């Protein structure tokens, strides 16, 4: 894949140096991001395993809870259950904190089913059944799992976003930025050596002309202007290289 030369660069040594520094920086950035992405993906799969486990336990927990609820309904009647449900105090809460995985903030959730034991006992034991207690207990347990699932899912989603973002940047560096810098560096190097060859041949030509002129004039000295002395100094040195 060949990529374009960055537009508007001048073929100078300064530019070449600056570009080389940029290329090294881009390369370093690319390597770092790559490492970050690998680590993120590792974490992602770890959490994914958790997620599958928790999802299963939520499904099983809920199934049990619904079963217990049905049993309670059979004993007490659906109306009674609904009545109790409506009178239940709003005590369940979730505590939200965040933690950081590789700099990605993920939620940390905890299910709080009410602090006081008394609050949990909001219905009369006289006209209800143990089946109801069971159903409520099961639903609380299921809620615990559901909140856990929410935490894991939140972490998964945020990690997934971070991974695709990082991948985008890695690819941009790898497939666009770095090749472009490399082609531009090559281009400038070509240009510079081309310029060098041009001036070299030009100097040789000038030298030859000057020598011819000098012979024609016999022993007559040519006046050494600064330019000419520079040329005569430069050319032999070049030939040695």
């Amino acid at each position: 894949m060949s990529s374009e030369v960055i537009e508007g660069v001048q073929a100078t040594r300064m530019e070449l140096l600056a570009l080389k520094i940029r290329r090294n920086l881009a390369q370093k950035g690319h390597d770092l991001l790559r490492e970050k992405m690998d680590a993120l993906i590792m974490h992602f799969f770890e959490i994914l395993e958790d997620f599958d486990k928790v999802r299963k336990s939520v499904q099983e927990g809920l199934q049990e809870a619904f079963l217990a609820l049905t049993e309670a309904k059979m004993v007490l009647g659906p109306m009674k259950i609904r009545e109790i449900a409506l009178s239940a105090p709003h005590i369940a809460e979730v505590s939200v904190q965040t933690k950081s995985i590789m700099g990605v903030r993920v939620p940390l959730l905890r299910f709080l089913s009410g602090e006081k034991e008394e609050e949990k006992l909001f219905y009369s034991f006289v006209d209800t059944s143990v089946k109801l207690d069971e159903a409520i207990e099961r639903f609380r347990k299921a809620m615990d799992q559901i909140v856990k699932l929410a935490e894991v899912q939140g972490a998964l989603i945020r990690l997934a976003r971070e991974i695709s973002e990082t991948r985008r940047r890695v690819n941009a560096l790898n497939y666009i930025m770095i090749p472009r810098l490399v082609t531009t560096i090559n281009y400038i190097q070509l240009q510079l050596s081309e310029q060098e060859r041009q001036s070299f041949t030009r100097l040789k030509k000038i030298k030859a002309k000057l020598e011819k002129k000098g012979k024609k004039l016999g022993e007559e000295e040519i006046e050494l202007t600064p330019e000419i002395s520079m040329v005569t100094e430069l050319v032999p040195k070049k030939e040695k290289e």
Partner: protein
Amino acid sequence: MKIASIGEEDTIVGLRLAGIGDAYIASEVSEVKAAIEKVLQDPDIGLLIITERLAEKVRNILNEIMERRTIPTIIEIPDRQGPIEREVDPISELIKRAVGVKLK
């Protein structure tokens, strides 16, 4: 923070028994939408539980919320009939996009 839930009757009764305050019974799309609207207006709600069957009906809205807001976290649970069969599981879709491989 508070927990909200949207579901059909049995789910809501169960979750109410577990102490969840903001529980909405819904079955039609319009009811679900109205309930979501109410939930979004309360900034103290940190978690929204919705049954898979209802979530499937308002998939677009949920995606949009997840895209725009970090709170509330939306979690889908199976209702009493158990988990539903979906053409695209949102989570495996997410994995496919993130990691570039399809699992399972």
